């Protein structure tokens, strides 16, 4: 098992090199001079411009720029943004907020989604099942910004349960509403996924055999049906965590959350190579770790899956 984990972590190195290279190249290839853009309408002082170019290695060829950046990463120096703030600092400010938001959303979609999906699947064809299907279909069809505005208006303003936008320091109680909105689509997907998985499992032979042994539904549903139904759901949750991190952009914008999505969006607009690449690098890392955890969780859920020792 330890060997397997080590192998997977080593696998992350080429993935990281590849992604950073691609992103760096794309930012490099973006039209327009990022420094000129900084000055807006004003004409910059040529000497200052030259100094800045020197500082950010902008007049070196692409590969040299990339190697400079790569060298920095190994010293945990992610470079400096064009506004003069070290990228490490920006990362430290924004990632905790977004990760908190994503975890909140994940917890919500996991607990509520699996529970409702389970009940739906067990009582297939009933009123509960029908309403769960309709509600989940509505949530899937609504664009996220519509859900966001609806939540903001009804839960935030009309009912006043939550603050409509996130306050300074992004306290956890302010993040609940954005998390609910962020989770809405995945929640609906998980309800449907769990439901169909449960329906499939509950008709399997071993469930009937469990009944024939004299077990009650109270035991069979969690022990024999739920566990077997969870594998596709876990796969979905794993990939979804990454989506939640990136997909937070719209939600973060609407609720004014000082998180990764908003900052990254602005950095892309400004063509700030080091900032964009650093954000993506951290995201890829998180994504890889989460995927590894999901793969390890498979082995826990299904003993038939065993990784080479």
């Amino acid at each position: 098992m330890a060997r397997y984990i080590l192998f997977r972590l080593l696998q992350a190195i080429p993935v990281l090199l590849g992604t950073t290279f691609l992103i760096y190249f794309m930012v490099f290839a973006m039209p327009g001079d990022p420094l000129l853009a900084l000055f807006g309408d004003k004409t910059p002082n040529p000497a200052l411009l030259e100094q800045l170019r020197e500082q950010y290695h902008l007049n070196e060829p692409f590969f040299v720029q990339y190697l400079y950046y790569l060298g920095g990463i190994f010293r945990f120096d992610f470079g400096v943004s064009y506004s003069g703030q070290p990228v490490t600092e920006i990362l430290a400010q924004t990632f905790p907020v977004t990760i908190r938001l994503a975890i909140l959303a994940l917890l919500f979609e996991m607990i509520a989604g699996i529970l409702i999906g389970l009940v739906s699947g067990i009582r297939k064809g009933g009123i509960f099942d029908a309403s769960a299907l309709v509600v989940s279909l509505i949530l899937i069809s609504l664009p996220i910004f519509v859900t966001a505005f609806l939540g903001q208006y009804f839960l935030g303003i009309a009912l006043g349960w939550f603050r409509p936008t996130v306050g300074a320091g992004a306290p956890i109680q302010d993040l609940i509403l954005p998390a609910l909105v962020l989770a809405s689509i995945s929640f609906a997907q998980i309800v449907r996924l769990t439901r169909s998985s449960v329906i499939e499992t509950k008709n399997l032979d071993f469930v009937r055999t469990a009944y024939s042994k004299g077990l009650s539904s109270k035991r069979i549903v969690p022990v024999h049906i739920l566990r077997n139904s969870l594998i596709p759901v876990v796969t979905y949750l794993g990939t979804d965590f990454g989506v939640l991190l990136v997909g937070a952009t719209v939600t973060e914008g609407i609720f004014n959350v000082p998180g990764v999505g908003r900052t990254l969006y602005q950095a892309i607009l400004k063509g700030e190579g080091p900032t964009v690449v650093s954000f993506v690098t951290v995201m890829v890392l998180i994504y890889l770790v989460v995927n590894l955890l999901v793969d390890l969780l498979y082995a826990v859920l299904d003993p038939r899956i065993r990784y080479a020792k």
Partner: protein
Amino acid sequence: MTEPLLQIKNLDVSFRTQDGEVKAVRSANLTLNAGQTLAIVGESGSGKSTTASAIINLLPGSGKITGGEIFFDGVDLTKVSEKKMEDIRGSQIGFVPQDPMSNLNPVWNIGFQVEEAVRANGIAKGRKDVKKRAIEVLKEAGLSDAERRLKQYPHQFSGGMRQRVLIGMGLAANPKLLIADEPTSALDVTVQRVILDHLETLTRDSNTAVIFITHDLGLAAERAEQLVVMYKGQVVESGPSVEILQNPLHPYTQRLVAAAPSLASRRIQATGADLVDIEHRPEADSNLDLIAQAASRAEAQKAEGHRGNAIVVDDVTKVFKIRQGSGRSIDFTAVDKVSFTVERGTTTALVGESGSGKSTVAKMLLKLEEATSGNIVIDGDTINGLKGRELLALRRRMQPVFQDPYGSLNPLQSIGNIISEPLRVHKVGDRKTQRARVKELLDQVSLPQMVVSRYPNELSGGQRQRIAIARALALKPDIVILDEAVSALDVLVQAQILQLLAELQEELKLTYLFITHDLAVVRVIADNVAVMQSGKIVEAATTDEVFENPQQEYTKALLEAIPGAGIQLGI
């Protein structure tokens, strides 16, 4: 006389379908005394499993008891609450399901699943006692190293082992009645025999009554004192086994007696039953007598004289590399220096248990696997290293029919497309001649032409296997490789397919390689037999020699395992 343990009176069971209610069981009656063994026999869809499920109220899907009574120990089970039923299941009525592969939960270890059954029926309390009883149960069921295996998972057990676990669970609480639903149909014949012997000992010792459900009349008669024959949801005949077997009254029972290969290979003379094809074209199968069939076949073959070899397998070995993870692998010899020949126009049966390497031989012949060493000669041409066009030409002369008629036909293609696909692949004729050929083939396999536009799921297992045979014949091959081609079918359907194969052989001068684990079938279809064990051919001779004078212990064991072998039949 004491009151019977189980009495079913006028039981009706219906399923709700899109076309309305379908009656699966119609006023069935059945009586079973304590300690007795009763077998319910019938083909799939006859309602035998449904009747059994109804007893413990575990009908699948939309099934519902719509009438009648089921008295068990004086209580009408159709009227008890679900809560009460839970108490009865397991502790009073044990159940052993059909397929050991799908009836254990793959994500829990064996110990957990047995302990669960022990605990639910209140046989033992406390973790230690429960575990102790679980080990006891497994040991009784024939798992000698039960302690060590408790922590293992179902996928680490063989089919026979799993069935032992299931039997152990069914008997864990010493129930008064055990329902065994085709408990061994999914197992090799030799394993089947051991398991059934064991089950018999266990239930006799504890005086447990058994309801034994099977489609094989021979098996039923061998294992049960009482027989109940079901057909289309109705009980058509019931009584003591020997009586029914020697003097079947209902035409359906007569057909079953005539068709069961396990009995056919023992029978001297047919009962003169009027056999009617239950699916299509009654006239085609009006004489479904396997023994007569086999006799006329043997005669016709004798008259032919030697016709040269269609298949020569010379010293063929197949080694698989089994990955051990992180780049290492060990060699596994699946087929070990196997040699045999098949004469043109004859049938050779390759017999062995699962894992004996018989299917690997078939795959190498079809060039789906490459032989590690040795030579395979088809019709005088070596097939080693054939590629591209030459390989395509070889495939044209040699076609396979596989075991599972449900898995080997693409469910999204119409029957016409399925049969004509080989013609399209090999670019034989234009659309019009292809369509004509499909019709001709359907005639040959005795199916009506209207099935052309239908889809596999609308056909029965036997009909599907006919389609698979038609597809194999589409290119007019010389050789057909039949890999367990009748093993998944009910006895009656099996008999029809065997007959069809024999007719086609005569008509088209086909050469068959017939791969099976069931020696009973071999007797009626094959001229020569090669018995395989752990990758080697241990015995090869003509069919008569093998059956009358087996040389190897292993062959004898296989022969003894044919159910019903010890039964004396009348007439």
